[in-house]
């Protein structure tokens, strides 16, 4: 019978994702109850270099797999399936990054397995795993379990911690996999960094978001200044994305990104239910809105009633001063 957890570590351009180490850490915490140990899998160029790094951080074994020189979801998914067969694992963990959310269902499809997407909590029960995951963009949390093995889980970045226990064995071995020519009928041909140094809203510790209350695309300059002082990412409501003031990559909400930063500052955003779905799990929420009745104040820890044109520059100046004192 299959047993153990296979964790696919994301290796983009020779960099190991923090979210992958978190998935590995969670596997290591669950392993005693699940049984069968933890195997980490690294695909593609640079795998060997990263294997030594990852091994002690929760893995009993590390498999490196060469053969995938160009990234295609099909080739990667087939490689993961080959690795799973070789170690006979019962569960596959992938971090729910863009690449992970692409890869995980493709692996599940090949295994004809259950897929549990974007899990925020996992627990072991009688040798199997139960998962909690947000549904309706976080308006509710669903606890669910796969009815058979194998099963594939993607783990939400930020929801799990890397391994903090004693170094694990992490014995490295290489596995060769020869992809089929048909694995490359769609391949990644270019990766271009988004606008210079801009942080991704979904990954930032602090997000400053703007809505229609900022008045215009130019109005976002004041918000970018605030973001620069805080080292924050800029987010946006759908209204301003639809107006073309900001790119869709910045949209927060049910049909944008779901964010959970340590601090979320909503400026000139009314707080529509679809926006709230994307940000109410933020640790601290600040709202600045000229309308004291705006629904955003119902979820905000701290609010200022006022005109963003006046409040934002003052806040940026005050924060610059406060942070300089440290």
């Amino acid at each position, binding site marked *: 019978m299959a047993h153990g957890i296979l964790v696919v570590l994301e290796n983009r351009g020779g960099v190991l994702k923090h979210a992958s180490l978190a998935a590995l850490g969670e596997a290591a915490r669950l392993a005693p109850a699940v049984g069968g140990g933890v195997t980490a899998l690294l695909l593609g160029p640079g795998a060997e270099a990263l294997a030594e790094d990852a091994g002690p951080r929760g893995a009993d074994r590390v498999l490196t797999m060469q053969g995938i020189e160009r990234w295609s979801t099909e080739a990667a998914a087939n490689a993961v399936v080959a690795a799973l067969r070789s170690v006979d694992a019962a569960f596959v963990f992938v971090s729910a990054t863009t690449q992970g959310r692409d890869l995980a269902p493709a692996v*599940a499809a090949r295994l004809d397995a259950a897929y549990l997407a974007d899990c925020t909590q996992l627990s072991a029960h009688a040798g199997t795993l139960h998962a909690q995951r947000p549904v309706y963009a976080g*308006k509710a949390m669903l606890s669910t379990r796969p009815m058979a093995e194998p099963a594939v889980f993607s783990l939400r970045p930020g929801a799990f911690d890397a391994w903090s226990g004693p170094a694990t064995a992490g014995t490295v071995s290489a596995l060769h996999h020869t992809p089929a020519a048909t694995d490359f009928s769609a391949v990644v041909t270019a990766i271009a960094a988004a606008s210079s140094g801009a942080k991704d809203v979904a990954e930032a510790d602090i997000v400053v978001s703007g809505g229609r209350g900022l008045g215009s695309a130019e109005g976002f300059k004041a918000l970018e200044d605030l973001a620069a002082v805080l080292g924050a990412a800029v987010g946006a409501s759908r209204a301003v994305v639809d107006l073309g003031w900001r790119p869709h990559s910045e949209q927060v909400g049910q049909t944008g990104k779901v964010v959970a930063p340590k601090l979320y500052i909503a400026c000139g955003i009314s707080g529509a239910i679809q926006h709230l779905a994307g940000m109410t799990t933020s640790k601290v929420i600040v709202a600045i809105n000229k309308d004291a009745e705006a629904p955003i104040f119902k979820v905000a820890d701290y609010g200022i009633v006022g005109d963003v044109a006046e409040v934002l520059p003052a806040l940026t100046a*005050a924060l610059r001063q406060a942070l300089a004192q440290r």
Partner: protein
Amino acid sequence: MNIVCCLARVPDTTTRIAVAADGRNPDLANAQWIINPYDEYALEAAVQLREAVGGEVCAVHVGPVDFQKDLRAALAKGADKAVQLQTDSPLGPHSIAALIAAQCGKPDVVFLGKQSVDGDVGGTGAFLAHLLGVPVISRVSHLNIQDGRFTAQREIEGAVETIEGSLPAVFTLDKGVNEPRRAGLKEIMAAKKKPLDVLKVAALPARLEALKLELPQARKSGRIVGTGAAAVAELVRVLRDEAKAI
């Protein structure tokens, strides 16, 4: 060209979710239902492609509840035919994909949304692509299809990725890829004559068991620290000393 677009049915995004008496499922008795917002991009992409290269667009929906009004709307927006695969079984990406794959023959292109905004899974496209033996390109926000080849772009963390390849292929679409059209009166009238079938089907068994549905803890109400620029000093103080957020 044989083009398929997959339309899911979801509660309107303004719906407040309540937990049903069984503690495992949402109580959606009062919800308004809509075509999944991302699937509007799938429909538009399908119709634009047909307009460019010819062929036929088939809109497919799998589900238990009468969806004919929405499928008619899809026909008015340019789909050539529509089919609902009707089953009362609980559904998941694997079973929805299996039913669509069995129904739609060998499509050249399939368009889906990047995820349904109820379950937020984003799995059906990958299952369907595997069953059809073609690649899946997910979360596409720019797409160009020409002479049997495509160039797609999608956002990844902090970057934009370009993917190239040849048809047949399955695409799951994100916002930004196109502007869904509205149907005019003439199209709405013409749609009444287009074929719309409802077929009873049997689905594969469920893969997942729902154990519990919970609502997130309500945030405790905060406070207004003041009015206008004068309140900024107090805000900075509470963020630093009280919330320890900066």
